[in-house]
């Protein structure tokens, strides 16, 4: 029987460590590598030009690599559900392969395609190669739930089987007798489109700081390892002024698009470590960047609401302010804080910023200063950040806004001091905000404090040429820390005076809940299971405890004057009186309510203990449809 196969590229834009493609080629007579792109979606999507350019460059690179194997890439315009039935017929396909996608919308899209394939008698091959591990196995090891702390995740990882070695690269040898039927008009019909074709205005577009593609990725990987070998230091590099700039050894966008295999990176790091450190076994911290990514993929894989506050069982419900003007100032680099504005400018221009710079702007937008929802920040990053992945982007934003993962919220980055510590001279500011070039280092992080004479000499009057700071940081942080404290006190039922203890059982397993400080030094005590026994919040995401009123006491319980009835009465304001009902009753899912998936979708249930995870197949709708499109188109 003749075997005609299609390999469907989505992420995983590479020929090295591409196990599903490799398996697809086995015994096949013809292969067509396709990428499906919805041109209508391109113009209207949330994804910015830098990300599209990176994608198109990666596709070009893939196409040129395939040419060397006498094949080509087929870029198909349309939507997967329309495209595949047509292709199956037209090309007489009986095999389809693609890389496993762990994200909820990807899984849903793939399930639909799998169904279409089986209806058409097409055999489907799926392999995991975007993550180091089979995420479902991690979850299984954790008793069926995604770990909620990074420490717990590390513990689980250390118990997992070794990471699978990367699959052999696709070469002429592996292609074997498998050929790609090509037509004369391939470029017209299946060529990689240009940015202009997708409706982007490219006039004045500067060249890419991060060129897309597997070839570039592999070059960078070599450079990355060379540099690591040279410094022979495997600890996390300390941040300095230089680390703020795009580095030719940076890999994150390449991992995001799968131009670089995380497993290849993993094994190269391991080899290098063994070589340099004389065969001692590498610590988990060596793989920090990869493991964080893995952690967020694991946290998100069964949670379709991972990118939202509402209905997201692991997200603390915080009464963020809705303020489009302030949001725009932040997003467009007009906050009046040079440190914040320089970072946002770099992000917009180049598509990448250092992870501590991400922390700085994320903290500023959310719990630090502006008190604006992390979802808004996440959307801006989704547009601009090359390595923004649905899971990692949402997860990091939740993390940095202290909306999940049991984070201490006092770690608040100062929009003046943090930058000054990192780059005391202010060169980074001058590079991205030329208007401030004339300011001396002393004032470059807080130019509004510069005397008028200094502003004049710098040819930049604050309030005229560069905005005044949009918030009073000290005042904002005073108010915000109080808000966070209130919210976390509700969550943890903590009534003491301490600030640190308000965070319910954080990853340190600190003895804040009774019976925890028992000197238990098993590594399990760190993690989820043990936390769960202490803390309901850990067990089922963030739930609001029954007390609600009186939580504005930072100190002892409210003075209820010995009225027993009142005690009970406080209970009725408990969570869960949410409901989408339009009746006269209030729909409150405010500060008082920390439930997650639990937030009832209808009047039929008001349990607050339900753990989400399994997706709700009937809760579809337009929003999701467009999400599916989005996932498929880059």
């Amino acid at each position, binding site marked *: 029987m003749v075997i005609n196969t299609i390999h469907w590229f989505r992420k995983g834009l590479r020929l090295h460590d591409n196990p599903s493609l490799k398996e697809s080629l086995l015994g096949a007579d013809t292969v067509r590598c396709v990428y499906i792109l919805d041109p209508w979606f391109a113009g209207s999507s949330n994804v910015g030009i830098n990300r599209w350019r990176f994608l198109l460059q990666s596709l070009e690179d893939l196409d040129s690599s395939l040419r060397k194997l006498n094949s080509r890439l087929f870029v198909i315009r349309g939507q997967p559900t329309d495209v595949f039935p047509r292709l199956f017929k037209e090309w007489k396909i009986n095999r389809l392969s693609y890389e496993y996608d762990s994200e909820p919308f990807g899984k849903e899209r793939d399930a639909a395609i799998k169904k279409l394939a089986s209806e058409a008698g097409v055999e489907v091959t799926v392999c995991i190669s975007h993550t180091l591990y089979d995420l479902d196995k991690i979850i299984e090891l954790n008793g069926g739930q995604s770990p909620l702390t990074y420490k717990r995740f590390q513990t689980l990882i250390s118990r997992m089987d070794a990471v699978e070695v990367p699959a052999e690269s696709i070469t002429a040898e592996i292609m074997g007798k498998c050929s790609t039927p090509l037509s004369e008009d391939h470029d017209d019909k299946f060529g990689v489109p240009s940015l202009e074709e997708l409706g982007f205005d490219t006039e004045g577009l500067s060249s890419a700081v991060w060129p897309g593609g597997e070839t570039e990725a592999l070059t960078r990987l070599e450079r990355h390892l060379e540099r690591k070998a040279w410094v022979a230091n495997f600890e996390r590099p300390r*941040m300095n002024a230089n680390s703020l700039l795009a580095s030719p050894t940076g890999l994150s966008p390449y991992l995001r698009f799968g131009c670089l295999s995380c497993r290849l990176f993993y094994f190269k790091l391991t080899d290098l470590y063994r070589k340099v450190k004389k065969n001692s076994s590498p610590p988990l911290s060596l793989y920090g960047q990869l493991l964080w990514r893995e952690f967020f993929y694991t946290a998100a894989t069964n949670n379709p609401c991972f990118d939202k506050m509402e209905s997201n069982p692991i997200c603390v419900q915080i009464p963020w302010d809705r303020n489009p003007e302030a949001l725009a100032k932040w997003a467009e680099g007009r906050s009046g804080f040079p440190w914040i504005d320089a970072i946002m400018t770099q992000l917009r221009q180049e598509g990448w910023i250092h992870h501590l710079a991400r922390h700085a702007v994320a903290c500023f937008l959310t719990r630090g200063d502006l008190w604006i929802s992390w979802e808004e920040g996440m959307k801006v990053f989704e547009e601009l950040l090359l390595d923004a992945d649905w899971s990692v982007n949402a997860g990091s934003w939740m993390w940095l806004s202290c909306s999940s993962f049991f984070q201490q919220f006092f770690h608040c980055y*100062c929009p003046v001091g*943090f930058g000054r510590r990192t780059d005391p001279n202010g060169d980074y500011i001058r590079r991205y905000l030329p208007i401030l070039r004339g300011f001396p280092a002393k004032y470059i992080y807080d130019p509004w404090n510069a005397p008028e004479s200094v502003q004049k000499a710098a040819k930049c009057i604050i309030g005229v040429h560069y905005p005044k700071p949009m918030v009073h940081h*000290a005042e904002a942080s005073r108010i915000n820390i109080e808000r966070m404290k209130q919210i976390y006190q509700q969550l943890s039922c903590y009534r003491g*005076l301490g600030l640190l*203890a308000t965070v319910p059982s954080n*990853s340190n397993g600190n003895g804040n809940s009774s019976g925890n400080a028992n000197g238990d030094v098993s590594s399990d005590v760190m993690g989820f299971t043990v936390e769960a026994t202490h803390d309901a919040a850990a067990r089922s995401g963030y739930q609001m405890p029954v007390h609600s009123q009186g939580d504005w006491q930072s100190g002892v319980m409210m003075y209820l004057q010995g009225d027993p009835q009142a005690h009970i009465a406080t*209970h009725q304001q408990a969570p869960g009186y949410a409901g989408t009902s339009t009746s*006269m009753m209030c729909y409150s899912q405010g500060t008082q309510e920390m439930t997650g998936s639990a937030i009832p979708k209808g009047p039929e249930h008001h349990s607050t203990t339900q753990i989400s995870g399994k997706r709700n197949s009937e809760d579809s709708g337009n929003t999701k449809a467009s999400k599916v499109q989005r996932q498929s188109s880059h």
Partner: protein
Amino acid sequence: CDSFIHSEAVEASESPDSNWARLPQELLLHIFQYLPLLDRAYASQVCRGWNQAFHMPELWRCFEFELNQPASSYLKATHPDLIKQIIKRHSNHLQYVSFKVDSSTESAEAACDILSQLVNCSLKTLGLISTARPSFMEVPKSHFISALTVVFVNSKSLSSLKIDDTPVDDPSLKVLVANNSDTLKLLKMSSCPHVSPAGILCVADQCHGLRELALNYHLLSDELLLALSSEKHVHLEHLRIDVVSENPGQHFHTIKKSSWDAMVRHSPKFNLVMYFFLYEDEFGPFFNDEIPVTHLYFGRSVSKEVLGRVGLHCPRLVELVVCANGLRPLDEELIRIAKHCTQLSAIGLGECEVSCSAFVEFVKMCGRRLSQLSIMEEVLIPDHKYSLDEIHWEVSKHLGRVWFPDMMPTW
């Protein structure tokens, strides 16, 4: 058997005198107390008896008004019809009331409108809570004051009052004192710019049952501390002071050591919680003398020198949180704190630097009493003695439990 139960159930529900309808009111009340408001409302439509139960005073003692505008909040608001109904039928039952308002002035004004209608109720607790920006500050002061004094005048037994970030002023506090001096136990009024030190002193002089107080440093005076330590006054349990700088270089007054001593003598167990939001050069007047602070929070960068003084002058310190410090490691300061602050059981360090050796030494000195130890990974500087991987073992050993530094995602 199944069918038997089934038929019985059908019978029961069909019978006009069904068991449910005959449920005693007390039982029904008990059940209703555990039901969310919305479910109670649904239940109230079942029958007359349940409808009566819905309106029982016991169920309306405690209420939280949520006032949000769609333009400024993601959260839904308490429905206006419900508010009307509460004011009409249940305002005399309300005892524990809080208002949660979003950042819009409109919401804060709506809260004031409700407050001014609470004429025939006697509140025991009242909380005005801004969930985003302090919006009560934007309400015309006279409107706010008149609404608030309605409650003060009509509720003669207020015990807890939380009015942070509001335009409350001295005359309105006088009204509070005139009507509620016997019952007031808790007063939180951080960042109320219209109150003067004399205004708060009047409260302390008259309200002898006051146990908890939160205010800004500019209201703190020696006289206030002495008033709170007078013989007539109950033991204070909790004093929270916010020290906030309005503009750089602001000058702050000092509090005499003798006043603090008087406080400690009168209320030996009281907690003094201080939050500092100052520029580094504004710390001059602080920590030069012994101060009975128990919980200390530095929201902005604080110098090594000031932390050194903290180590010398805060013998009652229980919790210390330092959000940021300069570039020089805090080694000696931490050791000094470990040595002198023998009650210290919680510490958090954000943007600071400490050498691993000094940190281990600090933990060793404090030992197992450190129940909260939240240190950012970046804070710890590896040295010849300990690498980052080694330090968590070493620290865990001294703490007697597994410990790791706090981590931020490498994105």
